[in-house]
């Protein structure tokens, strides 16, 4: 489906869609939450427009925002996301530790974050090739190969 959407529009549309869903969730709460929902929707639309404008810039950030990143820019994005993941893990660990120390009931979301990030890491190892090590070419299979020098 993404192939039908112009690269420059992909991220802005993603931001607008995700933001609208979140703003809609606030609107569903009822009461005065609709005011927050409207403010949130305006913010999201501004963010989407800003991303679209940035996507036109001749820069690494522009290429990433415009979904036209080359291998170096993709690697930059990947490393940044990995850094974010590390920070999330550390923050979740600190959250659980503090929660346990003060006997808090609010520490379970940290446990969920830690579990999800840990599981995602294992999934990544599995998906990206750890299980493809195979057998080494020179593994001793029990068959004696004749040496060319001995014949």
């Amino acid at each position, binding site marked *: 489906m993404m192939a039908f959407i112009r690269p420059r529009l992909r991220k802005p549309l993603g931001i607008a869609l995700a933001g609208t869903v979140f703003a809609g969730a606030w609107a569903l709460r009822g009461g005065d939450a609709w005011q927050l929902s409207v403010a949130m929707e305006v913010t999201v639309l501004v963010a989407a427009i800003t991303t679209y404008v940035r996507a036109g810039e001749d*820069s*690494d950030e522009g*290429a990433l925002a415009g979904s036209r990143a*080359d*291998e*170096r*820019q993709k690697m930059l994005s990947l490393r940044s996301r990995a850094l974010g993941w590390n920070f999330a893990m550390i923050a979740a660990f600190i959250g659980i530790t503090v929660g346990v120390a003060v006997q808090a009931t609010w520490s379970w979301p940290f446990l969920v974050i830690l579990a999800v990030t840990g599981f995602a890491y294992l999934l990544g190892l599995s998906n990206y090739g750890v299980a493809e090590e195979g057998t080494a070419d020179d593994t001793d299979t029990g068959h004696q190969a004749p040496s060319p020098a001995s014949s």
Partner: protein
Amino acid sequence: MRNRVREQRTQREMSQAELAAALGVSRQTVISIESGRYLPSLPLAFAIARFFGLTVDKMFDPDEEETGT
């Protein structure tokens, strides 16, 4: 690792943007490769070498340190 991308490009009087367009990468990536801050992937290294009509080991020398921009 030293490379001869800048040297080859300037010999051909090409701009970084022109080389980037020819290789299908961004201008920023060409700048990073030339300055030695980014080592290209093997396919990109081959593409660069082929573009300049050289072999990869002529284009990229692992024994020489980059001296900066």
